[in-house]
Every structure is written in C-alpha cells, then in structure tokens.
C-alpha cells in the first residue's frame, strides 16, 4: 500500500461523511449527524498514514505543492470540525457546510491542472519556517471554514435562538482561528521570506491578499469586541473575510508573484 491508496480512500470517506451529513440535515436526526462527524474523523485517521508515507517518499513534510496543500487542509480540517463537534456541539447544518467545503478542497486535488506526482521540494521550499508558515496558516484557515459554515447557517436559521447560536459560533471560531492565521500567514511567513528572499515583505499578491484577509478578520473582531456588532452586519463581514481568504488561497495564483513557486 502506498500513500495514494490512503489519499484516495480518505477522499471517499470524506465524501461518505458529506452524504451522511446531508442525510442528517434532511432527516433532522442527530444520530446521523453523530455518524457523519465520526465518519469525518475516520477519514482523518485514514489519511494520516498516507500523509506520513508521502512525507517519507519525498523526505519532507508534504505541503509543498497544490495537491498537498488542498489535501492537507482537508486533513487538518476534518479533525478541527470533529473537535468543534465534540466541544461546541456544532449542529448538522454547520457540519454539512464545513464538510462540503473540505470535500471541495480535496476535490481540487483531482483537477487535471493539479499534479499528484510526488516530487521532492525545490531548494527554496526546504525550510522549516515554511512548514510553520503553512501549517499554522492552514490551521487558522480551517477554523475560518467552520466560521463560514456557521455564518451561512445563520442566514438560513429561522429562530432567533438558533441565529444567536450561529452568530456566537461564527465569533468563537474566528477568535480561535485568528491567532493561528496571524502567526502562520504573517509572522512565520515574514520570517521565512527574510531567510528565503532577503525581505520580510515584498507586497507580492499572495502576501497582500493574506494581509487583506487578516485586516477583514481583524476588523470583524474589533467590530464585535469594541463596537459590539452582532447579527447580520457581523455575519456579512465574516462572509466577506472568508471570500478574501478563499481568493488568497486559490485566486491569487492567477496574479503571479514570488509565491508561484510555493505551495499554492
């Protein structure tokens, strides 16, 4: 068995989790939600040996190309969504949307534009600052995925109580994700850039859009904490911030720049 076996198997398990979550959403039975969340966690466990094997094959942490980046997000996302289910009892709607986004990320790895080939990293990517930069940024981003799911669930919630709960969940997940994103995308990213390119910051499109994403999430937190924004206004800001994050992840590649040799 090689890493591809575990990667392919994990994708089908995540897909199964998504179907179960959809079923849970439609049937409104919490039992299916529980099965869906545990299936997602099993997907995480199944992908783990794949990740280790791929790492051994390439002799580095497998986060150095698009294929590895999107599957890494799904892997880390699966455990974060499961953690949120266990600690914050996220409802089926949030579980379904989060899983759908993670499956979407994973599906990108099957795109004909993305090569699943195992290749050792080019010299510039052989840095443990890069590993910290990517893994912390991704950890923050998966919390933002859950916050997006909660924000979307808010818009579809019919009762005031449910809306208040989704609003609170959006806030809490951003509150957890923001420090990780700050450390990963900005702090460790800047340090790696200094060692790799000689400059902390080059206003490269990926850097600029990471900053834009950070500014939106910082704005969201300040509006909550200081201006006491709650409800729809706050939710819209969270959705705009998430759109910036997705553009930073995928869209910026079309703008070129230094990060064109990097993971995404």
């Amino acid at each position: 068995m090689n890493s591809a076996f575990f990667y392919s198997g994990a994708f089908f398990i995540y897909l199964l989790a998504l179907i179960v979550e959809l079923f849970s959403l439609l049937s409104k039975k919490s039992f299916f939600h529980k099965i869906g969340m545990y299936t997602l966690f099993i997907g995480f466990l199944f992908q783990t040996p794949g990740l280790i094997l791929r790492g051994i094959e390439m002799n580095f942490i497998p986060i150095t190309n698009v294929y590895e980046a999107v599957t890494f997000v799904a892997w880390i996302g699966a455990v974060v969504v499961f953690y949120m289910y266990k600690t914050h009892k996220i409802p089926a709607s949030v579980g379904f949307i989060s899983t759908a986004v993670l499956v979407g990320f994973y599906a990108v790895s099957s795109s004909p534009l993305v090569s699943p080939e195992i290749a050792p990293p080019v010299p510039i990517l052989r840095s443990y600052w890069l590993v910290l930069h990517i893994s912390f940024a991704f950890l923050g981003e998966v919390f933002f995925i859950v916050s997006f799911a909660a924000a979307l669930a808010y818009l579809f919630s019919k009762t005031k109580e449910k809306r208040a709960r989704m609003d609170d969940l959006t806030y809490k997940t951003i509150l957890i994700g923001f420090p990780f994103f700050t450390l990963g995308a900005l702090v460790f990213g800047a340090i790696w850039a200094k060692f790799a390119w000689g400059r902390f910051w080059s206003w490269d499109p990926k850097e600029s859009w990471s900053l834009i994403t950070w500014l939106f999430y910082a704005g969201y937190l300040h509006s909550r904490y200081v201006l006491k924004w709650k409800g729809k206004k706050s939710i819209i800001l969270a959705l705009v911030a998430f759109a910036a994050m997705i553009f930073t992840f995928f869209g910026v590649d079309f703008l070129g720049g230094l990060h064109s040799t990097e993971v995404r």
Partner: protein
Amino acid sequence: MKSFLRLFRSIKLAIVLMILIATVAGIGTLIPQNNEQAFYISHYAGIGKLIIVFGLDHYSHSILFGILLSLFFLNVLVCALSRIVKTWPALFSKNISTSRFDHELPIDFALIKKELRKMGFKLRKSGDSVLATRGIISKLGPDIIHVGILMAIIGGMVVGLTTTQKTFFMQPGDVEQIGTLHIKLIDFKFLTYPNGQPKDWISVVQVSGKKTTYTKNITVNNPLNLGNGNLLYQSSYDKNWDIKLKFKGLNYEYEGPAATSIKYGGYTIYISEFIPDFRISGNNQVISVSDEPKNPAIYVEYQKDGKRVGRQWVFSKFDFPTDPKDFPIKASIEGFTSHLTTGLMLVHSEGDWLIFIALTLISIGVLATITKSYAKIIIKPHNNGTLVRVLFAKEKEEITKKITSLTVDRKTPK
C-alpha cells in the same frame, strides 16, 4: 487636540482605514506593477489615467498608500495608548474598593478562597478583603499586538528606506570585496535528488576581515550574516560555456568564453551565447530547452567596416550553410566545456531587528489572547458567609454562576 484624539481613537475609523488599505492593496494586485505610464494608458483606456493619478501602478510605494498607512499608524497608536491608559491602572491597581458587593453568599470565606485558587485565581489580601485575579496576560495581549503592529510599521519604513540589494556571480577562486571584508569563493556545489531535480546550491566561502578569517557554507534559506546589516544569500546559479571554434578560410581557431567578439583577418566576428540544446520555439524564437549539450549551436556574424557581410548558425552535430552560401569563411564547433558560477545576493538593511522585535511582540500578543480570559473578583468575609463582587470578566455570568453553584453544593452537606 481633543478632537484629534477623539477622531483617531475611533474604532470606526480603524475599520474604515482597514477597508481602504485592503481595497487599495487588492486593486494594486490586479494591476501589473511598475510599467511605463504608456502601458496603462494603452491597456486601460480612461481608467489608465486614474491608475497613474492614484499611483496604483506602484501601489505599495504610492503616496495614497503611504497616507493610508500613516493614518492607520496614528489610529493604532492613539487607540493603543487610550486602551493602556484606560485599562492598565485598574489592571495593576492594588486598591480594593469594598463599597459595593453583588452577592452575599452563605459559604465560608476560606472555602471560597480555596475554590477561587482552584479556578486559577491569584489571591492578594488587603485589609479583611481579598482581591482575586487571573488572566492578566490575556488582557495585555491586544496591547502587545498593537505595539507590535506599530513597531512593524516603523520597522517596515526603516527597512524599506535602507535596503539595498546586489547580485553577483562568482567562480571558485573569485574574490569580492564587501565593506572591509574579502569574500572568496572556495567551492560551489550543485546537489540534486536521484531524479535529477535540484536539491540545494551550496557556496563555500572564506570570509577574511581585519581580525578573523573563517569559512562558511551559504545555502538557500540559510544566508550568511556578515554583520553591519549585511546578509549574503544563495540566490541563483549560472552555467557558463567555453567554446572552441575553428574558422575555415581564415585559418584561425578561437578558444575561450562564448558571447564575445574578436577581430581577425580584417573581420570583426561576433560570437553569440552558446546554446546547448537548440530549439525553435512556437513563436520562432531560438531557445535552449535544457542545460545539457544535446543539440549544441552558436551563431556567428562577420562584419567589415561596421556592416554585416556574412553569418552562420554553427551546429555541432550537423552542417549548416553560411549566409551568403558562397561566403569564404565557415566556422565549426571543435569543442565546448561548461563551468558553474554561483549567484550570491548581498542584502543590506538597517531595521531588521525592529521587525524581529515587532514579530516577536505580535506572536506573544496573539498567544496571550488565547490564554485564560481576564477576571477580577473581590471577596470579603461577612456574617459566616462571603460578599462577592465580580469586577471584570468576559464570562461574568459564567463565573458568578459557578461561584453560586459552589455555594449550593457546599451548603448541602452542611
């Protein structure tokens, strides 16, 4: 002054500035940067002029962006100072106001102290009252982040204004003078993976100063710190070719580097770059598809009195006619050798330490914000029970509920 402070203390202004900075940076990334003005006029028609006026053709160095960052700096500075002035005295105050309490709980004072300690509170006695606090670090987190951001902006400006960059290529034995230091390249290694992909480039350099001489490796991601704000990076490499050309009809042989010109027999002979793997691209450009000498070629041009009189593509593996065909000289490639040169980049900047401190502060700040949230409680013994006041706490209700439930739990056995 007051209205100035009021304006820059506004969190609404901060959000507006964040949106404006994000907008300008976002638009800037969508527009090709640092081109000639004519490029923007021809590619963007009417909008082209706006791009130039607002400096979006070089947004990160534009006046508009500079103004927005300066306003943001002032905003963060005033907000941070206001926050510090407002919260720190209460945070570190040793005075305990016991004029008002929220709860009178029928529980032993010593027992409640024990429970507060269990909840992570630190207790400090003042008279007959006790001040319980926890999570001061968490309360300081945002202030540390704000100071870090201010330092990052100042550091960014210093670095931006003082950074210079220079790339040079060296072969083993070459010496470069950097300030008072002599940098001699001892060796250059090009490491590859088993599949031939590059793994690393290593320049072994000997640094000789007035007092010391030492040898160090410079690799990608591991620059050499030369002191005085100078860092030497492994930035690239190049493959140079020496060639041996025989000119039939001139009875002359050239041996030396490609891309040169020579004078012989009344001709000026221009020799192009050596092309190791010749190919004509889709848009009719001559390219080398690899660094390996699979189809070596070189272009030679003959001039007399400044005018071209003949030319020839010279291939190593096959014969190709001269232009004109009856031109009396014909060149042939008799040999070629390659040697690698290392590309080293010298970066000088003054404010790196400021940025490192700023990044450290931001890291400490964000880590502080995820520690246990700040809470401050005053307790005082009263008639076999305890008076409680929860002064600050994000989870004021939660903490109050916990203490109240403790009361019920403890009281029951009694």
